[in-house]
């Protein structure tokens, strides 16, 4: 019915279409797996169940809450409504200090305890991540 050429071209197009669809599915799937959600201490308090996904917690480092020994830094993140204990062993960025904004990435152990695997660095003393701004509201 159709020439060999047409068939070949059709096959080729179908192949491209299928591979594009597969790739898109692949991308979306791994996007789903690797997305890190941002939550404030208050949002964590409202959580129903604690899953094992990596999240980010943002807020202010509570004054006089930093405690440090030879391999763990622990501190409290607060959004002035609720707070959460964080413990962290790793490199601390320069601008990490009491009373300053912070974003910590890691895993929730329970509603009051967060095990951080990374504390995010910022470039600018006055800069506050939008997430932190949102988390601490108008304050």
């Amino acid at each position, binding site marked *: 019915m159709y020439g060999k050429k047409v068939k070949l071209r059709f096959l080729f197009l179908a192949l491209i279409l299928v591979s594009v669809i597969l790739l898109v599915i692949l991308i979306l799937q791994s996007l789903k797996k690797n997305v890190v959600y941002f939550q404030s201490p208050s949002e964590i308090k409202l959580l129903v169940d604690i899953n094992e996904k990596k999240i980010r917690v943002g807020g202010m480092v509570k004054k006089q809450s930093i405690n440090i020994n030879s391999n*763990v830094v622990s501190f409290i993140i607060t959004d002035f409504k609720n707070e959460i204990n964080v413990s962290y062993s790793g490199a*601390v960025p320069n601008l990490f200090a009491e009373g300053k904004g912070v974003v910590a990435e890691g895993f929730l152990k329970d509603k009051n305890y967060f095990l951080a695997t990374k504390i995010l660095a910022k470039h600018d003393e006055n800069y506050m991540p939008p997430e932190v701004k949102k988390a601490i509201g108008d304050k």
Partner: protein
Amino acid sequence: MLASQIGYFSLILGLIFSFLLVASSIKNFNDSNKNINQKILTLSFLQLFFVITSFIGLIFSFISSDFSNETVFNNSHTTKPLFYKISGTWGNHEGSLLLWLLILTLFIFLFLVKSNEQPKKYRLLTLLFQQVIIIGFFLFLLKTSNPFNQLFPVPKEGLGLNPILQDPALAIHPPILYLGYVGSSIVFSASLSAVTQNYISKEWALHIKKWILISWFFLSIGIMLGSIWAYYELGWGGFWFWDPVENVSLMPWLTLTALLHCVLVLEKRITLTSWIVVLSIATFILSMCGTFLVRSGILNSVHTFANDPERGIFILIFLFILILLSLLIFFIFHKEKSENIKKIFWLSKETSILINNWFMMYFLSVVLIGTTYPIFLDVISGLKISVGPPFYQKLIVPFLIPFLLFMAIGPRLNWIKSKLENKLSLIIFFILSIFLAFFILKKLNLDLLINTVLISSAFYLFFITLRDFFIKKFNNFSQTTAHFSFSILILSILFNSILSSEIIANIKVGEKFQFNKGNILFEKIVKNESSNYQSVIGHFKIKNDDGKIIYLKPELRIYNQPITITSEADIKTTFLSDTFLVMNLVKGQEYFNIRYQVKPFMIWIWISVSLMSLGGLISVFKKKHEK
């Protein structure tokens, strides 16, 4: 004061010259002259002259710390070293836009001078399109980000430049990167003009190829400088973090690389014409997005500096108009030339270049989705998310395997129809690479399947290109150099990521920290004063696992204006590996937080990228020579 005034008025004069240029090129377009009117060249030169004057005016305001100028006030300080006063000129939003404008006008002038052999109408149209972009930038500068705003009363002291930007690599990073970005604007204007003139031809390919190569060269070097800076200044010890700001510079690089390969096809045969135009448009639009996303505050990145969202809106509108305009021109004027459609066989250079493009587009879409998805999700649902490095690694790394293999074989094919020659040696090299990769990984006690396959394909490219250097028949020196360097790049990245080791500890002065078989001794701290910062230098004695002792002296700098602490890593570089030590002070505590890293083959990442870019540059000069 005066320098600032001169700068401002030169800027306005430059804008006037834009309109003069538009008017005279329209006049020149339809007259009977065969050549471009000499007056246009003069006008373009004058425009360049005034923009340069304006830029120098800004530099002078910075050097003389003229705080009546708002930009200087916001970004400079009297105690800053001269070098950073100058580099502070483009270390801020206003100044960097002025630099963009400067390069835009410089490039169109060079284009006019260098394109003598091209048809008149094509040159004039390119000038016109470029002037549309230039006028857009003039308006944007004057309206929303005037670098010469006056302050009254005049402040006594400036706010200072963000100390993290006071660094040699970052001083030259923006100009180089912009040369790459703006170079793509010429490619953009030229291909739109070639479409309208139906001038997409072999001659055009030969001529535009130089511009593509030059912008590709600068873009590659610019990205690398940013990466080097992030490596030693941010203290994270990596070279690529898949941060949105890095990603936006990678995206135009991917399209430009695809374009570079496509133009090679066009040089020989008239095919892929519409694809080339689409790539040119995409590269420039992505470059513009790159500049503005960094500064507009749309992107949520750790790199984001303080910013002003209102500027973003102007830019979005400008971008939107440019995209619409270019697509309109493309659809109205583009005609696929049918005279030359010959059959392309499966096994040919054309196919292999098409495959390269498919890969580039795939990498681009991964990066694009990963970068923009959080923005869309935030707008739609208000959810704040970020996409981590594993996303990119998982999606890109496996595809590198076929990519590397095609990269090795592709250049050996002939145009139109080809046979694989020397099949035997290709297979021998393949087996050799697999064995080599396997033994290395076995020796290191790592035998992950994916690593073996990846490293073997990188080795394969390495050997094949290495051999191609010595074979006359495949002697395309610049291409072989670029592909060869790419194989070194991938190899060093792979070994670097597999073999890197890291130790993080909190340690007091005088303490010793034990790890495996080695230890880190914090001997003492020494204080030091410089013109605009105080520094605390830690002296560390490190005994590695293998018993070797090294001394490292990382530094903490406390800048006076703005008061900021930065840490300067101390890095000992050898050809085999980097040792990297950075320390941080946790405020109000006596503990120092240190991060000690051993990073094998780090220097080869920079060397290979430089070599690869040079490979591209060589090919610019080679073509000139042959003529």
